[in-house]
């Protein structure tokens, strides 16, 4: 997957997790939780969806690296590049 595809994949997951939110203006460098209503259980949903859809495991110690959309892409790029 390209970085753009990874970004879209993450956005698709987020849209499913928080379907009431408008994601069109989401900024890549600002923490997601500062832009949309996303609590810890929602975050665990993102982790679960990455596991179910792409077989990607994110250890708890790495959760902070997924705080922003750009951070997600950077973290997942080496793990999803071959998908």
């Amino acid at each position: 997957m390209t970085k753009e595809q990874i970004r879209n994949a993450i956005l698709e997951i987020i849209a499913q997790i928080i379907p009431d939110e408008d994601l069109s203006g989401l900024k890549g460098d600002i923490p997601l939780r500062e832009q949309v209503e996303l609590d810890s259980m929602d975050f665990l949903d993102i982790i679960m969806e990455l596991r179910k859809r792409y077989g990607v495991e994110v250890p708890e110690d790495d959760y902070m690296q997924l705080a922003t959309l750009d951070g997600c892409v950077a973290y997942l790029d080496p793990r999803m590049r071959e998908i």
Partner: protein
Amino acid sequence: MVTEGSRETRVVITGVGLTAPNGDNLAQFRKGLLEGRSGVQRLSVRYIGDVLAGICHFDPLKYQKKKELRRGTRAGSIAIYCAQEAVADAGLDLASFDRSRVGVYLGITEHGTVETENEIYEIKQFDYDVKYWSHHHNPRVVANNPAGEVTLNLGITGPHYTLGAACAGGNIGLIHGLQMLTLNEVDLALSGGVSESAGSFGIFAGFRSEGALASHPDPEKACRPFDRDRSGVVVAEGGCVFVLERLEDALRRGVRIYGEVAGYAVNSDAADFIFPSAERQVECIRLALNRAGISPDDVDIINTHGTGTAEGDPVECQAIREVFGQHPHAYINNTKSFIGHAMGAAGALELAGNLPSFEDRIVHPTINLDNLDPKCQLGNLVINEPRRIDKVDYILNNSFGMLGINSVVIVKRFCGQGSDDSGNRETGD
């Protein structure tokens, strides 16, 4: 408290919120019951295929966000819809109410079955690897979930919990709310019952294994209490929440009063897991009559529990004949014949469907009764067509459940403070 010889605290019903397979508010539901409109339909259920079930059609997004729906349970959604509708119906503005003095007490038959089945189905796609098991599982399956979701949605900070009472749950929820008001634990009780049972293949499969799951070429004719050709239970989902408050509070607010809870009783068969006991049902009915301070001839409508099983219906009829005689004053009906068995919601829904009789003096019938089982012979059974009667002062509602739990609630037409039979309402209609 409503006990023998004691009338210190009078508790009244001032709001009704409900969803049933044939109506999403009391007016629709009542119309369906008077027009003979069933809510039973075909439903495709995982592992089983087509079954007959009662499914509700309320709009859950009326009171919840999509995210809340995704996170919560169907029972929670039903409970929220019913609670919100009941609060609105009672003319309450909870924002200006002390919400620490509101209690949420909901009867359930079971809870967690649907969610657990869903999770097992989900991890089956991953060869049962439990790392795919949802972190939402525990908050979804805790037994207080439906009541808890109501408090989250309405910002209620008073007590909340469910009462597991099998198919007597709806009555038990109402009874418990009355008790908490009587104990002055709360000033307002959101009480009733909910069921998401139709989402569980296990409930259908369980009844089928018992030989007690209804089948019929026409879904609307499948639930046939007291009929010789009945074939068992039609599982339904649904919910009904009453706003209960002390009479003086209701009078001060000047709101509509649907009726006063005049008496109740709960007892146990101590006999069998599934088969009922006429003897204990008789004791339960008599205890409720005694607490209401009335005789059998004072009761105008008996809403039966009758689920449409060969084992259950005759036992209840035997109990009714023993208490009320072969030729009772009361007219007798059944609500499950329309909507199926809404399990934890059944008692509350069935009571709600009869409350308008205080106003219109019409008894809704039991439908799908074409060939009366001689063992279910009851005087004044209202069959297939509604019946207008002279007066409706007392409605008695039976609800019984597995493990031998019996419950009876008696509601009295509200005639004004201190008056028994004036017919003059102190509050508007």
